[in-house]
């Protein structure tokens, strides 16, 4: 038996069923079913997407490594350049700090006029404690002029060229400086040594010398201006059998790290050699 409906009736039934399904779906009747389908669909899509991306990664990784290596080398070069720049700037900061300290020292001691100079070398001989600076007679530097830093006495000019000068440090074994102990107001002689250590000689036996006493130039002999800081007493040696006491001195200036110095250009050293009488026969 075959029942047949007119075409218009079939269309009306389909439309009604469709509208009913839509109304039921909008009413939320199919929500559990659609959720299950969504979950399944999302899971499948996630799996497919993940696998696809893995395959893409696998195919494109070699190219990325190459580009990353190139980028890495570029960044390493940049880091090296910046590190070099940092070192350069740190050096400039250090130099600026030193020069600033020297300027402060010069302002605090306006009696003298100064010429700043950079230390550019050291004497080739290990027996001598000399340094070479980058100013000479063209800048008004003359032999005998005292040399200082903001920390204290350095030495004096030994020889001069047009654009350079050689400085004899107070640590040189041939150096002798007349000094004064600030606390006890005692005068003595400061000597250098072959190892660069400083010592005080000719301290009278009755003088009271203590560790930590400040050592200043006395100005006697005319070789150095008075009251320039030299260092501190770190050890005293007093023997009753000897005529004088001796003491070891810790210099205020770090002679191994001298970078900049000030030459006192308006101090005229006095040559007292003709006044020194040699004992007759």
């Amino acid at each position, binding site marked *: 038996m075959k029942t047949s409906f007119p075409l218009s009736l079939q269309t009306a039934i389909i439309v009604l069923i469709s509208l009913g399904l839509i109304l039921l779906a909008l009413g939320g009747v199919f929500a559990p079913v659609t959720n299950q389908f969504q979950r399944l669909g999302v899971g499948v899509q996630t799996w497919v997407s993940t696998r696809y991306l893995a395959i893409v990664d696998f195919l494109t990784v070699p190219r990325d490594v190459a580009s990353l290596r190139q980028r890495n080398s570029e960044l390493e070069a940049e880091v090296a350049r910046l590190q070099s720049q940092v070192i350069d700037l740190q050096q400039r900061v250090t130099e600026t700090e030193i020069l600033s300290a020297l300027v402060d020292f010069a302002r605090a001691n306006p009696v003298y006029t100064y010429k700043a100079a950079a230390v550019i070398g050291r*004497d080739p001989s*290990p*027996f*001598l404690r*000399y340094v070479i600076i980058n100013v000479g007679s063209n800048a008004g530097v003359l032999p005998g002029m005292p040399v200082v830093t903001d920390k204290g006495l350095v030495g004096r000019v030994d020889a001069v060229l047009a654009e350079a000068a050689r400085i004899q440090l107070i640590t040189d074994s*041939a150096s002798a400086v007349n000094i004064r102990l600030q606390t006890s107001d005692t005068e003595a002689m400061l000597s250098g040594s072959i190892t660069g250590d400083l010592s005080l000689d000719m301290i009278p036996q009755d003088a009271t010398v203590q560790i930590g006493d400040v050592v200043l130039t006395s100005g006697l002999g005319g070789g150095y201006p008075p009251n320039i800081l030299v260092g501190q007493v770190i050890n005293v040696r007093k023997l009753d059998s000897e005529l004088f006491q001796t003491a070891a001195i810790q210099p205020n200036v770090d002679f191994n790290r001298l970078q900049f110095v000030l030459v006192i250009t308006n101090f005229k050293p006095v040559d007292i050699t003709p006044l020194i009488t040699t004992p007759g026969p």
Partner: protein
Amino acid sequence: MRRSLLLAFPVLTLVLLLQTAIVSRISLLSGNADLMLLVLVAWALQERVRGTWFWPILGGLLSGLASGIPWYLYLACYLLTVLLARVLVRRIWQAPLLAVFTVTFAGSVLLMTIMYLQRLFLQIPLEFGLTSSQVVLPSILLNLFLSIPVFFLMRDLAGRVYPAEAVA
């Protein structure tokens, strides 16, 4: 010979700059190496080199210019050392390293002795034991240590200036 003379000026000037700016700042105890001496020894020990006598003269003058030690002491020391090197280079040329060590040691001892005597002559009190242990021995050790690389550098330089003649 002309090449050796012309080469002496830039090489020894550079050596003096390196000595005063760098080598003198690198000290072992209170001693330091004498790069000028090492270069003169290494150059004098190159058998094919001609005109070696000009080098110690110029080296002595340059070192004397930079140092508080009189130039004629450097000159005398360098000349004697080069003389020893030229004598040895003909006798033990098969063992150049032995010659390098021998001449470097002898030259260093000579230089230290001359400097020490000069200080004594100026009536500067120097304790012999302290000077030996703190200055002389460390300086000799540094000289011996640096003599080998300096020798090979100078041998390369001599090879460039005096290329070996082709054997027929």
